[in-house]
């Protein structure tokens, strides 16, 4: 047993096992979550008073930009990928991903990306400060001549390459390595979510890579893709950017949808309602997600016909999303609900995501959007979707699958406190932003009108709850990992196999190398 002698660190660093890579993704996301959360705290400190004063205007823009960049590219997407890497091969009864070494490479691309991203704060001129959207010409050589933006572009390239390679791996794995008997319409919803997601990444991410490459060329090689004086157009950048970055918000939530379906079914003790409808809904979101990007650009001067089209497509995407919400509720209907922490996060996610979804419909309505665009209403909406949707579903997934990954439970008592801290903190911070936005508070400003001060202080106070929740979550992880295994968990700790257990519950907890003693056959 040479394996035993290797240190744990070395084993993980050289691993091509999808489970170990999945865990590395999750640890990476957690560590970066601390960094991104710290930056969020700086923002809330700065906005405690209307006149600001904690950081300089330059640093404030850098913090806002990097908070978003880190949370999106280093926290939510890798955390989703972590669960995906761990669970998808298990759920389809495969021994590993199709390309294990490529899988490891996808993960390791993130490490230099993270180092470059964080290091950009310490170079001359600081990190990129043009918002995570990096609109032209603000981030052109003329207006941001320092290396921060170049480093941001490299971060986007590395994380994008990581996503694309991962997506190829998921598609090949899901297409070719399903256990005997598992037709597409027998795949667990989580696998369906990942298949849709992988296609979205494959279509969208290269466009973003192209757009930032053009920015790099404009900055250093004298091209003028986005420079009006050279015949270029800054609005073109927005089209390219949002062609990826709108689908990206679905890339950040669709795997979460999959996880919620599993959790809600498990703790309602019922099969998930409307499986086929759910599959079509996810696929529909995947397709429609690419036809809505210009709703971020309603104030740029697009023609009314174009705006009307994108407005309608944007509102239409609420239909498949609504199908998912109603199906989850119907799954609960008549069930026997058990309120574990995972279930609480799932229910919390549903209730918060409905708010984020409806405010998305409001924002799709052009005349209303023109008023709300780039106001705090948008900040509220996107955090309801990304925190209330993605982060809550990730935390639910963590509580649900931690026993499978480690053979131990996460502390449920502590977990309850984590849940309420997150739910209350998130609501306190982001609910009021709807009001300040409607009353005219602009986003990405380091000072604001004094009349919004009271509400901003409540928002900043809400951050403390989320911080506490985050600390307690990390602590409960450490506590659980350090606790020795006394009695190993059985294969199916939540007793889901008799309802609609997917294959990961048919192997030991944690699963052995190569996942299954014999490849399961799906009846």
């Amino acid at each position, binding site marked *: 047993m040479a394996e035993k002698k290797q240190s744990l660190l070395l084993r993980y660093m050289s691993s091509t096992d999808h489970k170990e890579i999945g865990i590395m993704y999750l640890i990476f996301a957690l560590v970066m979550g601390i960094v991104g959360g710290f930056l969020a705290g700086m923002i809330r400190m700065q906005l405690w008073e209307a006149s*600001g004063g904690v950081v*300089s205007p*330059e640093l*404030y823009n850098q913090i806002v930009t990097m908070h978003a960049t880190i949370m999106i590219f280093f926290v939510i997407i890798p955390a989703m990928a972590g669960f995906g890497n761990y669970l998808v091969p298990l759920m389809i009864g495969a021994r590993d991903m199709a390309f294990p070494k490529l899988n490891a490479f996808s993960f390791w691309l993130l490490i230099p990306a993270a180092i470059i991203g964080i290091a950009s704060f310490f170079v001359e001129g600081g990190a990129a400060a043009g918002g995570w959207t990096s609109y032209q*010409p*603000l981030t052109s*050589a*003329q207006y941001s*001549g*320092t290396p921060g933006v170049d480093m941001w572009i490299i971060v986007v390239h590395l994380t994008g390459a990581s996503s694309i390679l991962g997506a190829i791996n998921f598609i090949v794995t899901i297409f070719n390595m399903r256990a005997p008997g598992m037709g597409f319409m027998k795949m667990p919803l989580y696998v369906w979510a990942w298949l849709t997601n992988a296609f979205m990444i494959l279509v969208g991410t290269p466009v973003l890579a192209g757009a930032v490459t053009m920015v790099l060329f404009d*900055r*250093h090689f*004298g091209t003028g893709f986005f420079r*009006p*004086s050279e015949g*270029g157009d*800054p609005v073109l950048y927005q089209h390219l950017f949002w062609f990826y970055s709108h689908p990206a918000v679905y890339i950040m939530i669709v795997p979460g949808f999959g996880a919620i379906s599993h959790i809600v079914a498990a703790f309602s003790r*019922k*099969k998930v*309602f*409307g*499986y086929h409808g759910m599959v079509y809904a996810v696929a529909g979101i995947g397709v429609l997600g690419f036809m809505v990007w210009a709703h971020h650009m309603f104030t740029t*001067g697009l023609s*009314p016909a174009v705006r*009307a089209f994108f407005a309608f497509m944007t*509102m*239409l995407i609420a*239909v498949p999303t*609504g*199908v998912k919400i109603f199906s989850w*509720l119907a*799954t*609960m209907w*008549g*069930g*026997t*609900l058990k309120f574990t922490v995972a279930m609480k996060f799932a229910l919390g996610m*549903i209730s918060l995501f409905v708010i984020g979804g*409806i405010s998305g*419909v*409001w924002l799709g*309505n052009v*005349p209303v959007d*023109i*008023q709300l665009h*780039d106001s705090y209403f948008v900040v509220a909406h996107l955090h309801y979707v990304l925190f209330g949707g993605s982060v809550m579903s990730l935390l639910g997934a963590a509580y649900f699958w931690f026993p499978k990954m480690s053979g131990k439970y996460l502390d449920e008592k502590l977990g309850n406190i984590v849940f*309420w801290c997150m*739910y209350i903190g998130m*609501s306190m911070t982001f609910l009021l932003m709807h009001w300040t936005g*409607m*009353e005219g508070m*602009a986003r*990405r400003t*380091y*000072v604001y*009108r004094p009349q919004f*001060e*009271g*509400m901003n202080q*409540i928002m900043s106070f809400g951050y403390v709850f989320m911080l506490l929740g985050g600390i307690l979550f990390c602590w409960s992880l450490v506590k659980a990992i350090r606790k020795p295994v006394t009695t190993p968990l059985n294969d199916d700790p939540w007793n889901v196999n008799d309802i609609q257990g997917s294959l990961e519950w048919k192997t030991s907890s944690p699963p052995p190398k190569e996942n299954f003693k014999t490849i399961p056959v799906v009846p």
Partner: protein
Amino acid sequence: MFKRKLPWLALALVPAAVYASEPLTSWLFNPVTPVAHDVRETFKIMLGLTLPFLLLPQILLAYAIWKFNEKRGHQPATFHENVPLEIVWTVVPALVLVAIAIPAYSTLKKIEVPPKSDLVVEVIGHQFFWEYRLPRYDIGYANEPLVVPADKIITLNLTSVDVIHSWWVPSFGVKQDANPGRITHAWFKAPEGHYKGQCAELCGPLHGEMWIDVEVVSEQEFEKWLEERMGSAASAPPDSAHSMMLSPEPESEVVNG
């Protein structure tokens, strides 16, 4: 016991905060222009039609949490499909969306198609101030409030000489990007008063303090203001023939390029 009350206490903080801040005099800004009024009406219609979809899942969720709690000890149901129901919850929201889209489109047309213009103002974004030009009177000035007559159709042609800015005055219902190399349009008709706004597109370090002030004055006051402007040597009028045809970027000083 305290743990159980904590969520409710936190919820109570929300109305408290709304009360503590300045009274919210209006739902969605304080509309003063025809467009802003229409936007608010569109918003109300949309709110009325979508609020049920916001509340219904929350109510169903709360009811399910109460009713189907395992502590009640009943057996879970076994149904997991109901095609008519699924068709209903797909079709009904789709129809509601069509119902929202119709008033939205008519308001959009109102925003897009201004009535006959009484005064054209050219708005030029700079890092970090606004320049205004009144071509008809050969007046140009920067970093001062925009002065316009009350109850007249004011049309704006917007552009920028550096990065993208966005001219946003909430109570006018106007938010329009000023893009370098392009000219965009907006219009408003406002009663007398002083209105505030700010740049709405991140444009650099001092973006947060790129405020907008608009003085809407009576016609007589506007005439007086025009005379003062045209008489004073301090305001150097721009060459109106060249107005709006600015060279957007002086390329000589490209840093790092």
